[in-house]
């Protein structure tokens, strides 16, 4: 006669109960009973059999051991250190009683609608004094468009939870105000900011900022002067906080600062949209800038609505550099590290200065080698301006490097960090890929159309009066320019992809250096071509002014390239030095 399988399980649970404290026994036994019955059903295909029950009991092991697992955590010696803070925390909690209650989907949706409408009213009312005509223009539909888009996004989120059958739960604290309760969404409504979302956010922010910079030249001067610079600055601010979220384990640290940036961004974007419908001038902003603003402002509105609840969420107290902090850095090691940072910083800055000098001197060498004369008038109006521009970007690059190494110096000095360079993670490589990809995209599109169009077909014919050597050098430089740019781009992408696959690899550093060199050669070629064209054509011709604009773009992107090339070179040198000193030590031993 076979035993009753349920009795087998109950007998086992009875033994477990004997070893459990009374305070937790009922709950634990009820939970275990459910698990054991389900496991038994699964083992015997739905029909609970005695053999399956015995197998399950065997899998759970000795009752005393199982009970011990439950009891252990409440008397864990490692927790004794935390007792004091736990008591303090509990005292706080008496004031801030945590209340858990089920939340309905309809109620959550209504809550979202209310908060969104409130934010839209606040934003559009605030901008009205600066662009009051929006009410009587087609811009009146924009808030509805923004509202519709964020509601669709939220409905998708709600449906996803609904399909999974999740019972939403509201968590509120006793001392919360009505406002706090209003803007807080259910705790288990998956509002997690995943890395992929942050990556999309970063990509869109870069594209929007690029769009603002490129398209602002087609705008009304007032827009370009008063709205574009602060909007771009706020976009950069948003980008900085988005990038921080990658490396930071605490998603709610610096929420307040980020929130202020987002509100500012929404206000400026909405103002730009309203100016797009300025009735006394046709097309003052340009349609593309308005559409970019509408799209991006919707994203920002969604973030504001969703993240308002984070404003009073306490961080857990782990500093940002928690995993990186090294309390055990000895004074000697610290002093060595600080010296090394100084040395590397100087090496990088020297590299930057040398690189820019090479670009401008190589450019100047073209007219010198071909013995062509540029009139002083043209030199003063065009050439000197170019040199000043290169110097400006060189100083910016040096400034960037100084800030970078200054921060590293501070981190070692005050916080005991142990690295001269921040270790490049896969995520940082991905961001770099996006940033440099966007920069290269901005430069390659006009370069390609210019190179394949005006430059080759027109310039060579225009320079037909020049001497044969000038024509030879000019033709060679023009032919070589684009391939060098393409090689630089492909190498750059390969380096970032290499970093994505392997982390901080030597390969990536070597290819970044190579790509930087290719980029600099093409910049030098472009500079040389420009100088030579100055000598043989009219400097005010449209195609030459276009080339000047591309040169400007190239120099601005070069700030990042030169900085990265120099730091990559310094990293490689540092690595070689470390390896060689290690080998010497090994040989000595």
């Amino acid at each position, binding site marked *: 006669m076979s035993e009753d399988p349920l009795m087998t399980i109950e007998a086992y649970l009875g033994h477990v109960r004997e070893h459990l404290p009374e305070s937790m026994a009922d709950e634990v036994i009820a939970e275990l009973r*459910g698990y054991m019955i389900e496991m038994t059903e699964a083992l015997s295909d739905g029909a609970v059999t005695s053999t399956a029950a015995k197998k399950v009991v065997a899998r*759970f092991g000795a009752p005393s051991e199982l009970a011990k697992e439950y009891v252990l*955590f409440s008397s864990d010696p490692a927790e004794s250190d935390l007792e004091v803070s736990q008591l303090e925390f509990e005292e706080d909690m008496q004031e801030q009683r945590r209340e858990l209650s089920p939340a309905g989907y309809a109620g959550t949706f209504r809550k979202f609608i209310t908060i969104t409408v409130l934010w839209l009213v606040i934003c559009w009312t605030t901008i009205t004094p600066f662009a009051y005509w929006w009410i009587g223009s087609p811009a009146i539909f924009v808030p509805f468009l923004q509202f519709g888009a964020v509601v669709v996004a939220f409905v998708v989120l709600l449906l996803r*939870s609904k399909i*999974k059958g999740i019972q939403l739960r509201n968590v509120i604290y006793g001392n919360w105000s009505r406002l706090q309760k209003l803007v807080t969404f259910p*705790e288990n409504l998956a509002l997690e900011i995943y890395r992929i979302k942050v990556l999309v956010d970063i990509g869109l922010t870069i594209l929007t900022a690029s769009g603002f910079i490129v398209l602002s030249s087609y705008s009304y001067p007032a827009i370009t002067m008063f709205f574009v610079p602060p909007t771009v600055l706020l976009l950069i601010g948003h980008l900085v906080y988005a990038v921080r979220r990658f490396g930071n*384990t605490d998603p709610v640290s610096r929420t307040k600062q980020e929130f202020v940036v987002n509100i500012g961004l929404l206000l400026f974007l909405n103002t730009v949209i309203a100016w797009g419908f300025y009735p006394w001038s046709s097309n003052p902003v340009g349609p593309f800038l308005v559409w970019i603003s509408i799209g991006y402002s919707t994203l920002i509105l969604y973030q504001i609505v969703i993240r308002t609840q984070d404003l009073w969420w306490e961080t857990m107290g*782990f500093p940002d550099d928690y995993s990186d902090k090294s309390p055990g850095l000895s004074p000697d090691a610290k002093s060595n590290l600080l010296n090394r940072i100084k040395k590397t910083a100087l090496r990088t800055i020297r590299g930057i200065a040398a690189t820019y000098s090479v670009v401008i001197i190589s450019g100047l060498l073209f007219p010198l080698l071909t013995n062509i004369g540029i009139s002083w008038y043209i030199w003063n109006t065009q050439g000197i301006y170019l040199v000043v521009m290169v110097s400006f970007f060189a100083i910016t690059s040096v400034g960037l490097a100084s800030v970078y190494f200054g921060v590293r110096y501070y981190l070692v000095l005050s916080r005991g960090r142990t690295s001269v360079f921040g270790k490049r993670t896969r995520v940082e490589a991905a961001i770099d890929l996006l940033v440099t990809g966007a920069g290269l995209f901005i430069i390659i599109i006009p370069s390609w159309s210019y190179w394949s169009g005006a430059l080759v077909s027109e310039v060579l014919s225009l320079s037909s009066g020049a001497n044969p050597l000038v024509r030879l050098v000019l033709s060679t430089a023009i032919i070589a320019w684009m391939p060098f740019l393409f090689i630089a781009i492909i190498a750059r992408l390969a380096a970032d992809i290499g970093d994505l696959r392997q982390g901080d690899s030597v390969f990536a550093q070597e290819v970044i250096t190579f790509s930087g060199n290719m980029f600099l050669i093409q910049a030098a070629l472009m500079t040389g071509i420009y100088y030579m064209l100055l000598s043989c054509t009219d400097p005010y011709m449209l195609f030459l002014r276009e080339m000047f604009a591309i040169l400007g773009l190239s120099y601005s992107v070069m700030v990042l390239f030169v900085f990265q090339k120099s730091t990559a070179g310094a990293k490689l040198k540092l690595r070689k030095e470390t390896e060689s000193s290690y080998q010497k030590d090994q040989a000595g031993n």
Partner: protein
Amino acid sequence: MSEDTVVGNPELEYEKWSVQIRRGALSMAILAIILDGESYGYDIMKKLGQEEYVALQVEPSTTYPLLRRLEARGILEGKWSDTSGKRRRLYYVTRGGRLILRQMVTAWRSLNDQLMQLVKEAGLE
């Protein structure tokens, strides 16, 4: 003489190390499974029982008490549910739990990178 003190049993050391690793990883695995919804213990056991997660398999006597521990520490929130006629305790990851999971992921990555660096330096990779 206990088994632990037996000289010349390297396999025993490996087994102990392997169990400890899995136990250490288990809370992270549980939080990752529940993160975007809610689950109950048996669902988690089933997920960990799948072939692709064989390295994470541990006994139920470890998994179920761990759920309680994570709940007691505010990392999970549990609630009884009687849907489909079965009484089950459903868990979801609290906001604090999400934060802890992020920290665990960072720490795990860092540990893995550093260990693999050592392994690489030793010429084992």
